[in-house]
């Protein structure tokens, strides 16, 4: 209801409510509430500022970086405009080469040419030294430039290079997203699959997803009975059990991961025991680490408390009489569990699944340490790209953005299926 209609009603009624000092009640209420509102806003302001500074701005930068492509457009401006007149067939004419020579002189002076070289080299390996080599002597180039370039390196006569440059004159590019999904432009500018021996990112996204699901499922299988035990034992025992759950939770992630290395490696405790028991021979020791198995075992252990705690908090609130009532009405143990107990624990179970899955999908340290070759996650490739050349940094940003979108999608679907407002986190 708008202010105008309120005023109309008050006027037509002819009996506007007033406070004792004669002000309109509505205005007085609004004034007192606005103070409250301002105070509340001031209270959340630090958090808001933190969120903007540490979360929204960096993510914004990440997304911007993943598509921003100034190398050719901004650092080779003359070449870009000269290329707009080229029809894309054969090798461009003297005008384009002259423009490139001029851009090279400026680029060498401003030291921006290296970024251009890195960008082009990312998709055409080997071109970096060709470009950097020429830029050192760019000032000495004499017309006709086309001949001069070709004399320096015949790579300048490649049609593919010029088509690539022409395509790269756009300041926004999807190129990094293409690589991040194992696609690329071919010489004709069409989007195609990358050669098979370069396809890696889709595999890793897929692996990250299914391994995270496996870890979540294992956490449910292991965590559910423990949480039930915790919730139903007498307080004294439950407290001791709770400490056993919490102690690892409070222990450093690195310590826990390293302990798993000690336990699982081929010369480790478990293998030693199996050899001693005669289950495996000394030469046939099991490889349980530096592969998928290692990642799954270590991460399940590390993430288990995130499943147990929400489950426990929900189970604690379920009166034991419900199950007894179900049994007394003739339900079997299984029936009573599936129809009474399980549905009541769904808010905790769903919260645990959400927590564990989302934590798992972005996990970095544990897969890096125990993942070997087959057990690493997409986050490990994001990290290595972030530490590498400028072009790879942008690829890393694209991969991270895709991961973010996937997590948000998962959250959306999860919300549709379960309803996030029903969750109980503890």
């Amino acid at each position, binding site marked *: 209801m708008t202010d105008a209609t309120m005023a109309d009603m008050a006027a037509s009624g002819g009996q506007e409510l007033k406070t004792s000092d004669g002000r309109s009640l509505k205005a007085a209420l609004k004034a007192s509430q606005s103070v409250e509102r301002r105070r509340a806003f001031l209270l959340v302001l630090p958090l808001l500022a933190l969120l903007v500074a540490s979360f929204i701005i960096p993510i914004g930068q990440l997304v911007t970086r993943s598509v921003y492509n100034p190398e050719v457009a901004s650092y080779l401006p003359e070449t870009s405009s000269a290329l707009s007149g080229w029809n894309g067939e054969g090798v461009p004419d003297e005008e384009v080469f002259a423009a490139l020579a001029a851009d090279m002189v400026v680029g060498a002076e401003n030291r921006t040419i290296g970024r251009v070289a890195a960008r082009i080299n990312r998709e055409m390996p080997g071109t970096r030294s060709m470009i950097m080599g020429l830029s050192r002597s760019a000032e000495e180039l004499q017309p006709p430039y086309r001949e001069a370039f070709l004399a320096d390196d015949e790579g300048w006569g490649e049609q593919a290079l010029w088509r690539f440059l022409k395509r790269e004159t756009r300041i926004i590019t999807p190129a990094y997203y293409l690589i991040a999904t194992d696609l690329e432009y071919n010489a004709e500018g069409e989007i195609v699959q990358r050669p098979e021996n370069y396809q*890696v990112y889709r595999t890793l996204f897929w692996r990250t997803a299914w391994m995270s699901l496996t870890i979540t499922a294992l956490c449910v299988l292991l965590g559910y009975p423990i949480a039930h035990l915790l919730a139903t034992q007498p307080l004294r025992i439950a407290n001791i059990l709770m400490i056993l759950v919490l102690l690892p939770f409070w222990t450093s992630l690195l310590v826990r991961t390293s302990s798993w290395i000690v336990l699982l490696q081929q010369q480790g405790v478990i293998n030693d025991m199996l050899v001693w028991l005669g289950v495996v021979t000394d030469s046939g020791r099991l490889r349980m680490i530096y592969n998928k198995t290692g990642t799954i075992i270590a991460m399940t252990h590390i993430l288990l408390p995130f499943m147990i705690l929400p489950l426990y908090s929900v189970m604690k609130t379920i009166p034991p009489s419900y199950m007894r009532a179900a049994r007394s009405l003739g339900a079997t143990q299984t029936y009573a569990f599936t129809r009474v107990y399980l549905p009541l624990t769904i808010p905790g179970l769903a919260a645990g699944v959400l927590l564990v899955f989302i934590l798992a999908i972005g996990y970095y340290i544990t897969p890096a340490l125990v993942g070997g070759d087959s057990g690493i996650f997409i986050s490990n490739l994001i990290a290595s790209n972030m530490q590498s050349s400028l*072009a790879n940094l942008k690829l890393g940003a694209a991969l991270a953005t895709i991961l973010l979108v996937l997590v948000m999608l998962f959250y959306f679907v999860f919300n549709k299926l379960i309803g996030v407002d029903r969750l109980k986190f503890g």
Partner: protein
Amino acid sequence: MLRKMLLASAATVVVTAATPALTQDADSLTIVSWGGAYERSQQLAYYEPFTEETGVEILQESESANGLAGIRSQVEAGNVSWDVVDLLQSDAQRACDEGLLEVIDPAEWLADGDDGTPPEEDFIENTMGDCFIPQILYATMFAYNTEAFPDGGPQTVEDIWDLEAFPGTRALQRIPQKNLEWALLADGVEPDQVYEVLATEEGQDQAFAKLDEIRDSVIWWEEGAQPPQLLADQEAVIATAYNGRIFDAQMNEDQPFEIMWDHQMFEVDGWVIPVGNEDELDTIKEFIRFSTDTQRLADQAQYIAYGPARNSSASKVSTFEGTDIEMAPHMPTNPENLETAIAFDVQFWADYGDALEERFNAWLAQ
């Protein structure tokens, strides 16, 4: 990699927290290095004598594992708190290409050798970069645990691929660099043609096919501290490693390790100067001149088994600190160890690194 990430997050905090206090203060220099025994050797050989002579305090940060990303973000933000950074030559090349580093004029920045050789000629050939002043030369090579091979360990790169004669797990670094070179060498490619072959599609296929032969016996390491540990636990019987790490384990932990110098790959590590510290440039130049002269480089070698980057320093290398163990035979630059050595080609990897890293990751993920 793990350490890189931890450092990355730590670096952000350090950068934001420490910046206002540290800039514009020529009474001190912030020098970034790798931590551990290596940074200690720099502290003893360079930092402490420099402070003694000039009164300039050296603030140490062990962030080099995150050096390239750190310099990039500081320069982009226009807020550079690192004065001098210790980087690998390959990372220095990338940063230099991106315009993040001061260009070095050797004649202006560096001292002549103590025999009067100008710096351009005194430093080992091909190690000086446009923005890069080499300090030490280190080797990556194969090492093995002698307990695993009572009848003698592998002697050549071909032996590494011989799973019958030398059974057991190999630990290799999880990067394509060097592994692909060794694969080609083991496949009979002539040492002087390795990079030529590796630049071709067929050469790359050949290298990956050769790696396939031992793949089931390989575990992959990421941190320099891992290989000595893996060898000590006999989790791997042969490992690629940095020579300084193996030397350290031999000397300080009495580990039964042996270095196989055949086809060792050596590369240099050195100083770079991020752009954006013009006010302090004089002090920085003074430090660089001081720390890279003949005597200092030779001094560093008594604390760690990495070879000095100047030819004129070689004859001055003495014994390992507190012992009478001659350092020379443990140096990658020792003539005997250099016989079949391969110079790691930074330019090649600057060109093909992005592509080969991707292909390597794809190969690992299969």
